[in-house]
């Protein structure tokens, strides 16, 4: 049985990377987007936030990133370095649903951006950007403008830009939702390979049961109105997951279980 309904036990001694306690988000128009969410994100894990549109999964992700204040509760980074004001220095990168590239800059200059903003010398930044682009398979497109790239390639540039800072945690907000299925499968595999190589933590927001079941070690299912976590499931299938896993019985079983829980969530 590959599925257990418990939060994986990473050992009580290790404190989580991110501790989310009682977090709510109410927007100015009165909408309660996120209600009383408790969640621990552990270092090195691949966690999916799965839920229907409007369940607050993007709002939650943005609050983890520090984009937008929490209305109630706390998001703590227990082991993070503190800045001058005692605030945790979040060692994260964010990948948006759109590639969000600067159209006036080449792929390489887009990837250099986070380094340049931190005042890294241009030559060194260019070198690091070239490496990051090579790691996502775009080593020969350094000087291409976003306009000249396909949707999947643009998303690869976006991922390279997120990885160039060597972040401890990568937050992805439905990154492949706009891509065709073949490209999405390829990017899923490439993301898993990068995760296996580098060992960063991933929080992956998606509305696709299949995508979350294929990628994750752990799936947090969210329900809408108000947005809350209604199930936290682990998948114990080992990595790397071969292409055959997509057609295996255990994958189908996991998808069915997740899907049932999601249906319950929508019906509730």
């Amino acid at each position, binding site marked *: 049985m590959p599925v257990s309904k418990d939060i994986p036990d990473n050992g009580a001694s290790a404190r989580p990377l991110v501790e989310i306690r009682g977090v709510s988000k109410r927007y100015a128009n009165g909408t309660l987007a996120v209600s009383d969410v408790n969640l621990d994100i552990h270092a090195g894990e691949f966690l999916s936030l799965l839920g229907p549109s409007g369940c607050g999964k993007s709002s939650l992700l943005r609050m983890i990133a520090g984009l937008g204040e929490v209305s109630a509760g706390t998001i703590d980074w227990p082991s993070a370095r503190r800045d001058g004001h005692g605030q945790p220095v979040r060692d994260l990168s964010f990948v948006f649903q759109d590639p969000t590239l600067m159209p006036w800059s080449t792929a390489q200059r887009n990837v250099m951006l986070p380094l340049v903003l931190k005042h890294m010398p241009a030559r060194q930044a260019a070198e690091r950007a070239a490496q990051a682009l090579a790691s996502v398979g775009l080593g020969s497109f350094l000087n291409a403008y976003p306009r000249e790239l*396909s949707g999947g390639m643009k998303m690869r540039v976006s991922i390279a830009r997120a990885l160039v800072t060597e972040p401890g945690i990568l937050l992805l907000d439905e990154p492949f939702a706009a891509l065709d299925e073949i490209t999405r499968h390829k990017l899923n595999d490439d993301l898993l390979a990068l995760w296996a190589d580098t060992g960063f933590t991933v929080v992956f927001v998606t509305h696709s049961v299949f995508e979350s079941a294929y990628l994750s070690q752990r799936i947090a299912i969210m329900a809408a109105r108000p947005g809350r976590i209604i199930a936290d499931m682990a998948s114990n299938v080992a990595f790397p997951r071969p292409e055959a896993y997509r057609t295996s019985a255990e994958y189908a079983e996991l998808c069915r279980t997740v899907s049932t829980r999601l249906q319950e969530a929508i019906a509730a």
Partner: protein
Amino acid sequence: MTDESARPVFHHEPRWLGLTAAGWQQVIAPIVIGVLALGLWEAVVRLLAIPPYLLPGPILIAQTLFENWNSLLISLWITLQTTLLALLAAVLVGGLLSILFTQFKWLELSLFPYAVILQVTPIVAIAPLIIIWVNNTAASLLICAWIVAFFPILSNTILGLNSADHNLVNLFQLYGATRWQTLIRLRLPAALPYFLGGLRISGGLALIGAVVAEFVAGSGGTSSGLAFRILEASYQLKIPLMFAALALVSAAGIVIFLVLTLISHLLLRRWHESAMRQEN
């Protein structure tokens, strides 16, 4: 890789003198129409024996232009000086103000309405005042042309500075970018296409402003631009000379527009949708 085959395909058509077949069509079609219209004009003038002081034919106008070439060229240069200086001032003041307005919202709130008032007041109505207040004729003409020219740059650039992709703004925020870095690396490049759109409008308006101001000033002497030559010729019933000066004003306007279009194309051709053609 599957992505790679999905890359957009761009046209590489054969070119003659830098223009594609479709490009030449765009140039030749209006020229043919123009030549036909001029021919018709000349024919009507000759067949109906219209006297030149009512409507000179294009050949007579061309002759007059050729005979008065040197003096007209001096006048053209004077008008162009006013136009270009006014455009430069419009770019500097309009660009700077739009940056200040977007950085300090209270400044925009308190000053933008006055920029609108300046824009909607007919220049013909305030030009006499400006010419009285400012002792130097050249300076007063410049101010008039600037008033007409600066608003499109101001309003377009403000729009551009505010239309940076909000996800990119978030991204800059996540990486701890300073206000200055966000301005230089994000807002200014995002505003460039809007600014250039405003610049193309302002180029023509600067010329119109300069010509209108010259009309109102009506000053003769050494610093007389093309508009004054038109006035002067009409007083003396030298209608062919009037048309010749008018033709030069139009030509100057067309050249300004073409030059600004070229600049815009060169700056945007690698990345902006407006400057690209994709095969469908």
